[in-house]
């Protein structure tokens, strides 16, 4: 056997089944990490569930608003079921009727049924009755069924129905508009036998059984179809002006981060663990896509590259005091043995060559890392709902709120030592995914039919843990001021 094989065998036999006991708290640490990962997993499920819910809600909201922004085609009276009527209107009419009945009661001594009273009064002065319709129309804005209701109330169970019917098609349509309006605003049912059945003139003529039926002329009804249409549009404030559904935007923003560097986060004695923190302004840019769900609402998404950087001085790194043998101890600049390792990311500081000064803070020994430079680049996908508070031909004001999904794509961390040497640190473990809330308000101006330019200050709030397995954790959120050039189509 050659020497090579012999020495291999020596170590193989001696160490192949070598066992040793780790620190007693090893399992506790592993268990704690597992718990943390489980929690993160659960949070992740909720995040995706939230995204799904937000998307569903956005589309549902858009559908709902979209469905209500179009002016409905005025329905043909034949398609209108007057089974619904406005309770206020009915109440008003009935009160009018009741007051009238009281007057009649004082004059007539024997009137067993209210309907009979009405029957007497209605045919007696149809024109006046029709004028009442017009008069009440201006008061209640829902005059259409006045005649019908009035009559039906009067008819009671006797089937004596009085219907005001226009004898021309155009006037009939005018009435149908009002009926449509009435039906639109109604939300209670009235029993069918109490309401006159409104049908086309011919049909109505066929259904009228009694000669008491009074056919009021259009002039008597005194309805102005055109004005009713106008009122309807104005009262409901429906803006039916056209708008572009899709938009694509180029976006850019300076990035103002607000960060918190936490060193040895499990150690409560380490507050103020960095001497100085200098935030560097970076830039964010990307493409945005919009889909106009309705006149007021727009769904936004896109893909954005977000840069962020900072420099930190005087980082206190906790020294691990676990080495009792002579393994790999290192000597700091003062000649002190600092227990071998600065546990920077759970691995050895690769540049631990005795360059770190030690310090005692609150009874705990720390190595002082003179400088730390961090630069991160993220790929992000925001999903937001925008609400147009103002949107006219020239300009718009809009609020946005949503969620931002962040994927860390690149990091550059550099350790700076007292002698000025800078060493890249590559073993940083990054949180691969995080989510933030985004919200803001912006305004913009429009150029021509398709283009607009907007400025939108946006707060991006949420934690991104950029170093998940280390003695140094960095959290941050950002303020952005997006400028965007959009093309709408």
């Amino acid at each position, binding site marked *: 056997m050659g*020497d*090579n094989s*012999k*020495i*291999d*065998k*020596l*170590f*193989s*036999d*001696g*160490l*192949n*089944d*070598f*066992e*040793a*006991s*780790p*620190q007693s708290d*090893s*399992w506790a*640490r*592993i*268990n704690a*990490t*597992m718990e943390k*990962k489980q929690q993160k997993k659960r949070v992740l499920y909720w995040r995706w569930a939230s995204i799904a819910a937000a998307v569903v809600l956005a589309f549902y909201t858009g559908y709902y608003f979209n469905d209500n922004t179009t002016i409905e085609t005025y329905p043909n009276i034949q398609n209108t079921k007057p089974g619904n009527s406005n309770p206020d209107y009915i109440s008003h009419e009935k009160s009018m009727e009741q007051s009238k009945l009281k007057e009649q009661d004082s004059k007539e001594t024997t009137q067993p049924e209210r309907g009979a009273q009405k029957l007497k009064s209605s045919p007696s002065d149809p024109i006046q009755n029709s004028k009442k319709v017009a008069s009440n129309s201006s008061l209640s804005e829902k005059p259409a069924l006045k005649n019908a209701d009035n009559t039906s109330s009067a008819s009671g169970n006797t089937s004596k129905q009085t219907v005001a019917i226009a004898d021309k098609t155009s006037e009939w349509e005018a009435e149908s508009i009002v009926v449509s309006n009435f039906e639109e605003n109604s939300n209670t049912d009235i029993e069918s036998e109490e309401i006159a059945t409104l049908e086309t003139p011919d049909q109505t003529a066929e259904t009228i059984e009694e000669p008491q039926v009074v056919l009021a002329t259009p002039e008597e009804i005194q309805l102005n179809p055109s004005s009713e249409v106008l009122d309807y549009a104005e009262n409901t404030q429906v803006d039916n002006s056209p708008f572009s559904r899709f938009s694509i935007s180029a976006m850019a923003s300076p990035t103002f981060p607000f960060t918190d560097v936490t060193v040895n986060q499990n150690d409560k004695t380490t507050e103020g663990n960095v001497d100085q923190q200098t935030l560097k302004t970076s830039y964010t840019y990307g493409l945005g896509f919009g889909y106009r769900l309705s006149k007021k609402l727009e769904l936004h998404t896109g893909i954005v590259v977000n840069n962020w950087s900072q420099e930190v001085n005087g980082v206190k790194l906790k020294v*691990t005091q*676990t*080495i*009792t*043998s002579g*393994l*790999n101890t290192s000597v700091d600049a003062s000649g002190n043995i600092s*227990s*071998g*390792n600065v*546990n920077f990311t*759970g*691995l*050895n500081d*690769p540049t631990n060559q005795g360059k770190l000064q030690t310090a005692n803070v609150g009874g705990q020994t720390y190595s002082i890392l003179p400088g730390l430079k961090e630069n991160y680049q993220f790929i992000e996908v925001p999903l937001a709902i925008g609400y147009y508070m103002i949107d006219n031909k020239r300009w718009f004001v809009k609020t946005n709120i949503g969620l931002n999904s962040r994927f860390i794509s690149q990091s550059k961390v550099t350790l700076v030592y007292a002698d000025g040497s800078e060493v890249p640190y*590559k*073993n940083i473990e990054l949180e691969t995914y995080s989510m933030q809330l985004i919200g803001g308000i912006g305004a913009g101006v429009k150029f021509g039919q398709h283009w607009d330019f907007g400025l939108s200050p946006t707060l991006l709030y949420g934690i991104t843990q950029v170093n998940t397995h280390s003695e140094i954790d960095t959290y941050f959120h950002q303020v952005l001021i997006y400028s965007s050039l959009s093309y709408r189509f």
Partner: protein
Amino acid sequence: MELESLVRASQKGDKKAHGELYTLLHRKMFGICLRYASSEAEAQDHLHDGFIHLYKNIKKYGFQGSFEGWARRLFVNLILQKFRSKKLLYATGFEFNETNEISYEHILEDINAAELLQLITELSPQYKLIFNLYAIEGYSHKEIAEKLEISEGTSKSNLSRARSILQAKVLERFPQCYQMKSNGG
């Protein structure tokens, strides 16, 4: 609980089974970690990360071969991955050609595992890694080259250098094992 049922329970995320697996394996795994680490603290980290990695990937174990062997490979591969990310491996131009005959037969009687471990730990990371993989884990140079993304020549030269350093250290601490050929072995 039998090992198989323990593994099956652990595959289903049973925390108690996780704990029992740890109890069963942690000393052996820590022994492996110590061989590859530069310090006890680093070995602790290897052990921590190794078990997290094991629990995460335990569903991939298909009950072919021993579980301990599978776990051992998992730990070693994780450690290799860490070394790769540090890019500490480089080629050396040194080729050890010791001509003296050395008798190791009785060394094991005089030297314990902790002392052998101490000798390995004193090696630089790249020598230690390749010596461990080749001499103790039984990997070939080709396999080492693939796993560490280096050339076979680099693997050989690093191994050779590691051996020479270890031999020197053994002879330094156990001079009674050193026998010159001229003395007749």
